[in-house]
């Protein structure tokens, strides 16, 4: 693979992967290219971003994880976006949390964050303060985490008589799919199956 192609592939992966970032080793596995070569390409990409006046993004390396971010000097511009009421960046976070709670209630904060992939304590707080959601109980187990559900005000807001009026979702859409657990069980059985033979 020539270095331009490699750089473009790395850029595409970094772009899609978002805030979680990706390590040079993972990139090496995905692209089937030596880590050394990946690191050289990453460093060249970074130089390109930094030197380009036209580019608003750059490459950040945090604890071995690479991710694309906006350049520090873009902070003011992005602040404007946040403050602008016509952009729905902010309502999106709240709406996502509200949607999850509406369809999966009762549900804990951790479960919501797991579905969204981002911290959600602040949207939850504001939805509580807007009386669209409320505590409806506590989860079993050690943490006794708060379970959230929607309120009467929620029904009111969306013009619904009851939760049954929400458009139905097919089962597959939000079914739990805890792969980590599956993986653990598989590995566990693989390891200990040997014992019995």
């Amino acid at each position: 693979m020539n270095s331009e192609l490699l750089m473009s592939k790395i850029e595409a992966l970094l772009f899609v992967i978002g805030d979680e970032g990706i390590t040079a080793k993972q990139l090496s596995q995905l692209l089937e290219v030596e880590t050394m070569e990946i690191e050289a390409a990453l460093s060249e990409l970074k130089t390109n971003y930094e030197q380009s006046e036209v580019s608003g993004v750059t490459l950040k390396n945090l604890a071995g994880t690479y991710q694309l971010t906006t350049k520090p000097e873009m902070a003011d511009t992005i602040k404007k976006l946040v403050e602008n009421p016509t952009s729905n960046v902010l309502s999106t976070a709240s709406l996502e949390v509200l949607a999850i709670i509406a369809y999966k209630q009762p549900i804990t904060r951790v479960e919501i964050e797991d579905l969204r992939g981002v911290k959600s304590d602040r949207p939850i707080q504001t939805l509580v303060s807007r009386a669209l959601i409320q505590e409806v109980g506590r989860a079993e187990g050690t943490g006794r985490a708060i379970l959230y559900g929607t309120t009467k005000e929620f029904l009111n807001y969306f013009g619904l008589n009851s939760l049954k009026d929400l458009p139905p979702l097919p089962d597959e859409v939000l079914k739990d799919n805890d792969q980590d657990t599956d993986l653990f069980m598989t590995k566990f059985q693989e390891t200990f199956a040997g014992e019995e033979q």
Partner: protein
Amino acid sequence: MSYEVKLDAFSGPLDLLLHLIHRLEIDIYDIPMAELTSQYIDHIHAMKELELNEASEYLVMAATLLAIKSRMLLPIHEGELEDAEFEVETEDPREELVIKLIEYKKYKEAAIELKELESDRSLVYTRPPSDLTSMVPDQQLALFDAKVNVYDMIGALQKILRRKNLRKPLSTRIARQEISVKEQMFAVVDSLKVQGGKSSFSDLFPYEDKTTIIVTFLSILELMKRQVVSVEQQKNFDELFVILDKEVPDNELRTIDE
């Protein structure tokens, strides 16, 4: 003539009819009703055995076909055809069906075009909006657009799912493919060697992702079972230490079945 009829091959009776018309090379404006009807009914028989979901709709169509066929067999006298009074009643019994078929065909073809667009679009990926919630005061967070409705919520869910689909593999799939318990056993032994044969338990877990931790943990269990390493602890809640008990020749570890 025999042919296979697949359950999911047709999305309805009109679809089946279009298929037959195409296969039999029939002119849609001049359908030989006897032939089409008998072919259609043959298909229904084959499909009936498959407990077709929409059986009733296919049967209604069969009845319609039979009705058209019989109407076409009614004798019409020359004189009546020429008589203006009867002209209204001399429309082709097939007309309604043909109009339906042609109208349906249009959307069936449009659906095929959509499928192509779907496949083109699936080659292109976007990213979720950055999480900017930390940049704003609380009261601003839950400000919804006044037009937000329940369908916007469904849209929000759809986005979450798309994102989850992209997010999932990094933490698990790469690890599943690339790190086996066996490989991790080598890594643990190597790491112990580097540290002079003894390491604190937690130092063996430098990775943050869950699967690597699980695989590392399992590999230590496996090494204990094979008496390659032992684990000691001075007293309750003290740190655990993993100790390399014996130098295992590489080839012995390599014979482990995964």
